[in-house]
């Protein structure tokens, strides 16, 4: 369509502003969303690590090397009660002597029974992977009543990381929403000023019988394209920045903790950002003009 627009948009400087602001917004949104996606993947991996069983040890000797005997038994009971009562724990059992034997067999051989050895009591805790227990709380409760109990600390660290990561993802969500809101506000103000600047032309084509949709569409289309162009540029600028960070992170952590690569689906989500912001821009401009025209005769 070689048809030029009825409204002389080319002559107002707001075009540049729309593209510029959407470039900036999409740039930031792409970077933080990529961060969130990578974090989300890592959280999934950490969940897998944490999943299944967790072990709590009750040592059979106290710190000055004395055998604890009956105390060991009561400590184990208390620990079991604490662990079982925690939210997200599906079950907890003390490993039987037979289980201990088979566990130790690779090291000690079949013929030695573990009852002869000063082995700690092991409590096998099955946890709900969908509703992870608060390991820190369990640890705190245990250390109060069973100071000797040892909780797998790798898991605690991981569960702390998971909490941190989940908060980061939440924060990203909030920032994304703020970005979209401020973009919508910018578009609204630019559109409003456009309506003022072009009031005479609008009223003229209105008098010629142009429907509200005819006029509104021109504003909305313009907003869409300007935002899309700015957004694509912002996205393209974000790419090398992301690649640099991915390279840097993978080198730093050896991809053990973080695996800073994106799947195809995640790339798909990221490329949606310019389209989404452009659509938001279309809808905002549409709503702004539509509402304004309703007030005209």
């Amino acid at each position, binding site marked *: 369509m070689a048809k030029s627009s009825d409204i*002389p948009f080319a002559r107002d400087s707001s075009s540049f502003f729309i593209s510029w602001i959407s470039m900036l917004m999409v740039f930031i949104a792409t970077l933080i969303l990529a961060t969130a996606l990578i974090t989300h993947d890592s959280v999934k991996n950490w969940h897998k690590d944490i999943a299944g069983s967790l072990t709590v040890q009750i040592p059979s000797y106290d710190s000055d090397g004395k055998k604890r005997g009956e105390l060991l038994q009561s400590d184990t009971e208390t620990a079991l009660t604490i662990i079982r009562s925690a939210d997200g724990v599906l079950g907890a059992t003390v490993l039987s002597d037979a289980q201990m034997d088979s566990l130790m067999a690779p090291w000690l051989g079949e013929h030695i029974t573990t009852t002869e050895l000063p082995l700690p009591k092991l409590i096998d805790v099955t946890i709900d992977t969908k509703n992870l227990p608060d390991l820190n709380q369990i640890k705190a409760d245990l250390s109060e009543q069973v100071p000797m109990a040892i909780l797998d600390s790798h898991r605690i660290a991981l569960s702390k990381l998971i909490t941190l990561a989940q908060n980061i993802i939440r924060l990203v969500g909030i920032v994304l929403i703020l970005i979209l809101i401020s973009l919508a506000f910018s578009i609204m103000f630019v559109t409003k000023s456009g309506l003022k600047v072009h009031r005479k032309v609008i009223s*003229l*084509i*209105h*008098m*010629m*019988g142009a429907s509200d949709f005819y006029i509104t569409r021109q504003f909305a289309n313009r907003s869409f394209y300007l935002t899309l162009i700015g957004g694509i540029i912002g996205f393209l600028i974000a790419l090398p920045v992301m690649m640099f960070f991915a390279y840097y992170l993978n080198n730093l952590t050896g991809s053990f903790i973080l695996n800073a690569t994106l799947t195809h689906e995640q790339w798909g989500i990221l490329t949606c950002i310019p389209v989404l912001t452009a659509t938001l821009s279309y809808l905002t401009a549409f709503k702004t003009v539509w509402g304004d025209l309703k007030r005209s*005769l």
Partner: protein
Amino acid sequence: MFEKNKLSSPIAEFNGVSFRYGHGSEILKDIQLTLDPGSFHFMTGESGAGKTSLLGLFYMNHLPTRGRVRLFGKAVDTLSRAEKAQIRRQIGVVFQDYRLLNHLNAFDNVALPLRIAGVKETEIKRHVSELLAWVGLEKQLKAFPPELSGGEKQRIAIARAVINRPQLLVADEPTGNVDDAMAKRLLYLFLELNKLGTTIVIATHNQNLIKHFRFDQLHLSHGRLERINPNIRNNGQ
């Protein structure tokens, strides 16, 4: 049957219409007016009499402050937005100050009502070129309004008002900037349109035109409207 029925209902009916701008004094007072389909009227009155203001009521530039205006049989104060747009598409307006779009060339300015009405580009091309040739602007198709003379702009404004063959043509001083020969030529364009059924109201100060064409006059003075039939008056003198 339907066609005849449609033709017999008035294009515009003003009933006790008064109008003022904001809190200003009343410019139009108790106007009683019926425009029959296919009629041709001049609107006269001295400068400031309210011709432009009265014409504005025909294309719903503003609503009356009192009384009721009916267009094509419908009371304008009860129309939905879509209905208003639909009615406006059947009305061609030549504005006293032309109101051409400076960022569009002559061709696109004239094509505007057709585009608004959703006419196909191939048809637009044919109609617009033809009409611009008729008003003597075939060489200025690509010219932008600021590059044109007052008379040329006026002819583009007229072409734009008639391109869509409106049911009602409202022209505010459409020949103020052209010589008498061109004014007559433009009037013949309106006459052609009138023969095809368009109802026409032309506000003008040009006594030569009024005398030459002898159409009924709607004359405004002190906010009141009176009809003058030049033939009857001449006979009487």
